């Protein structure tokens, strides 16, 4: 084989991987970053029913912040997000700690906490809509069991409806958090625990002083995953309450869809999508940065 052909072969072998990777990368650039830029442009334009590319400054954003529906959506996201993260985290950690007590039937129990994660939020919403049905659901069950005065109308009560979303979402996601904590608990160094036990630390102290502090990275991961799920929540609201009663369970994601596609306020809708993106980016970018850097070492 001549030098020349070896050279061209190496050259080809060097360039080939880049050619193969190029389409995927180009698609990401165009369909993620190109689209973000496009939505950004729309958010600064006077688009209403059809997209326009003129420039009207930040008036869509000022309009957005003055819109009552957006404020309601943000308030709801705050209530939903905080409860969802805190309850999923607490429940997940609690179940994980219990399962970590050398439980003989752990292999049998663990999947029971996790299976809701395999379901679509639409299925979850459909199911919980039925359980929480004010006439025939839990309320009827309680009446039949002798609690005559039991009243449970959260699904149609605009002050309480947002909590039904929390309940269904916690049922779906807490098993996942449990799995994350369980993996974290299994990775804890047992030497340190033995030493502390010899020093006479009680189990409660062990968890409070040594084990839970070491789960810091898991808390962070759980927080990032859950908060990004909360901000993106759309399906569950649509299936469970449809955003109602009234607008009492609107979230930013449903607001964006409404304004962009049904209310002909495309500019405002795009502005709300940009706010959602920036919020998620503020959480995800530092996290991804830290995660990929750690791998370097």
């Amino acid at each position: 084989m001549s030098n020349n052909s070896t050279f061209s072969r190496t050259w080809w072998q060097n360039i080939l991987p880049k050619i193969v990777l190029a389409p995927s990368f180009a698609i990401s650039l165009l369909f993620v970053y190109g689209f973000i830029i496009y939505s950004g442009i729309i958010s600064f334009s006077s688009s209403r029913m059809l997209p326009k590319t003129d420039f009207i400054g930040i008036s869509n954003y000022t309009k957005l912040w003055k819109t009552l529906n957006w404020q309601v959506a943000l308030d709801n996201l705050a209530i939903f997000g905080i409860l969802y993260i805190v309850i999923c985290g607490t429940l997940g950690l609690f179940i994980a700690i219990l399962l970590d007590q050398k439980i003989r039937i752990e292999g049998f129990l663990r999947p029971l906490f996790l299976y809701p994660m395999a379901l679509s939020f639409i299925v979850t919403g459909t199911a919980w809509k039925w359980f929480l049905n004010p006439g025939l659901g839990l309320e009827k069950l309680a009446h039949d069991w002798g609690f005559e005065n039991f009243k449970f109308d959260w699904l149609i009560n605009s002050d309480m409806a947002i909590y039904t979303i929390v309940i269904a979402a916690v049922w779906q996601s807490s098993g996942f958090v449990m799995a994350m904590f369980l993996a974290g608990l299994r990775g804890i160094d047992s030497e340190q625990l033995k030493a502390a036990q010899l020093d006479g630390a009680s189990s409660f102290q062990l968890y409070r002083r040594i084990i839970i502090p070491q789960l810091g990275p898991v808390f962070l991961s759980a927080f990032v995953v859950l908060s990004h799920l909360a901000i993106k929540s759309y399906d569950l609201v649509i299936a469970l309450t449809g955003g109602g009663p009234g607008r009492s369970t609107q979230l930013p994601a449903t607001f964006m869809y409404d304004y962009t596609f049904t209310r002909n306020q495309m500019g405002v809708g795009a502005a709300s999508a940009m706010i959602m993106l920036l919020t998620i980016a503020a959480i995800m970018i530092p996290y991804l940065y830290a995660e990929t850097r750690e791998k370097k070492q």
Partner: protein
Amino acid sequence: MSIASNNNPSVSSQRFWRVLIYTTLIVMAVFYLLPLFIMLLTSVKTLDEIRDGNLLTLPVQWTLEPWKKAWGTACVGLTCEGINGYFWNSIKMVVPSVAISTILGAINGYILTKWRFPGHRWVFALMLFGCFIPFQIVLLPMSQVLGFLGIAGSTAGLVLVHVTYGIGFSTLFFRNYYEAFPTELVNAAKIDGAGFFRIFWRILLPSSAPIIVVTVIWQFTNIWNDFLFGASFAAGEHAPMTVALNNLVNSTTGVKEYNVDMAAAIIAAAPTLLVYIVAGRYFVRGLMAGSVKG
């Protein structure tokens, strides 16, 4: 570490703790299972029994009519042909989307670990961030692109969308997996004159079975369960299962048939539940890989 292995515990207090822990766990597991149980129960009751009884009363007369109706004759929107057509829509959407995104993810992961070039980290970071964006941001431009390509409202359009936003995760999975694969083997093969595709095909792929399973399950679950893209880009008769289920439940015509709703919901959930039951271990691994990297 166990609570029960306390210092100087009396045997009886230890037993008390064990019983308490087991009881708590079992009670909680029952609560997690209850929704699925109630769905199944409701789906085999007649409407009269649903109205007369409560969520937990067992059916006096078992019936499979709700299932038949959900599958074949229930009204979704304006047509009353059940959900079977939408079920197949979802299959037609899921199979190519999963196949293409997994293949692309495998080859991308291979390049990003074994054929590194300056800036590979940036390429990966940019692709990875695409997994986490709120998809609301792409709905509007995407619908225009699909219209421009002439595949708006079709299954082909949905496949394109799911592949596009699925390769981020599949690349992540394969990249992390191949990172641990010995690079010496690949380098030795390069010196022996094996080419790019040959090394992938003969050396990496044969040991990739676990990560392929994880990726396929992850993509399958996500794409099957998607609602936002389906509702935005495939209305009417091309809608996937999740969209059809939502329409079926929210159809306002006639009496509310909770048993049919529940049967349809279980049918919509069946494929992913089945995957979870058969390969739950891999499902969990995918979940973890998608959140806790490294």
